[in-house]
């Protein structure tokens, strides 16, 4: 089994997701990145999109995020975002939802 690492998805209102994961996919302005354990230290901006987290129990969580930042440091992945919401649907639906949330705010 892949080596696990800590993931926290945090918004100003609440901690959206926190736990151990084996794989994270997120989208930065430069493109999509996948993160496994022992990833090099990274600071990245996020675009409004869907983030995918694979938990150690094999679960897959899709979270729509409205911009934000991603930090990887010593096997700790932190995603900071204005607004985030866990969705059941596909990644496309999650990204759409995040975009709607963003539109509501402005």
């Amino acid at each position, binding site marked *: 089994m892949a080596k696990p690492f800590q993931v*926290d998805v*945090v*918004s*100003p*209102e*609440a*901690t959206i997701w926190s736990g151990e994961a084996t794989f994270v996919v997120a989208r*930065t*302005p*430069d493109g999509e*990145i996948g993160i496994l354990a022992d990833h*090099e*230290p*990274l*600071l*990245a*901006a996020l675009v409004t999109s869907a983030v995918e987290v694979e938990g150690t129990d094999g679960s897959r969580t899709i979270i729509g995020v409205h*911009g*934000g*930042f991603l*930090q990887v*440091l010593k096997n700790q992945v*932190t995603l*900071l975002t*204005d*607004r985030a919401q866990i969705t059941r649907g596909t990644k496309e639906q999650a990204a759409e939802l995040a975009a709607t949330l963003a539109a*509501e*705010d402005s």
Partner: protein
Amino acid sequence: MLATQKITRAMELIAASRIPKANARVTASKPYTAKLIEVIQNLGAGGAGSSHILLERRDPQTVGVVVVSSDRGLAGAYASTIIRMAEQRIIDLRREGKQIRIFAVGKKAQAYFRYRGYRIERVFLGVTDTPGYGDARALGDAVMGTFASGQIDAVETFFTRFQSAASQKAISFELLPIEQPAAGEGTSAVSYAYEPAPDEILDRLLPRYVEAILFNMLLEASASEHSARRRAMKAATDNADDLIRTLTVSANRARQAEITTEISEIVGGAEALASAR
């Protein structure tokens, strides 16, 4: 009196029920701010430039003043305490020959400063009861926009810090220009990979940082407001209790006095009739 007491008691209970929720939101917002500060520190330690407009320290000619009050009254001295603190600072700044722009949060601050003829830049209403992140963003946009365009050279904020349900404190701090959080003990100079470039990340981070601080501030002020209202309404209810007690005694005494007078009049009248016969 009883009816008034019922109202004040209801308001007391409503306010009391909202304190834990407001307090929980304050707590829930802290991890985000803490992480954001951590990232900024790491960026600074990693050598990101500090040329952002929000970090620019100018000789202040015009100062923006953000005052967080309430929309509604019946919260004791909650609004007037923070407003008076802000006004004192405004008077001092003016004495130094500086211009003032006021950003009023809550009807109370708006009414106070408008009545006294201050120039109000922006007003934010319907925010203080349950502030959302969108409210913090609107306030942040207004303040940062005015700062970035050079219309104001510094921003000071006034709000009520929620220390506990029993204690809240009116405080002020300088929001802009941003005092870049210094690299603390825990931050070692990590060499990050950046996506995009560090300066670009900082560009995006700093506005979020200001918003997070404002959001935190609005939440604390809201918790303080509910606590102040609960306390004021409890005092009013207790006072109504005392009033009801004294008034009941006086009413009974007055009624008794009237009866006594009537009896003595009747007895006096009867005696006069008897002796006349």
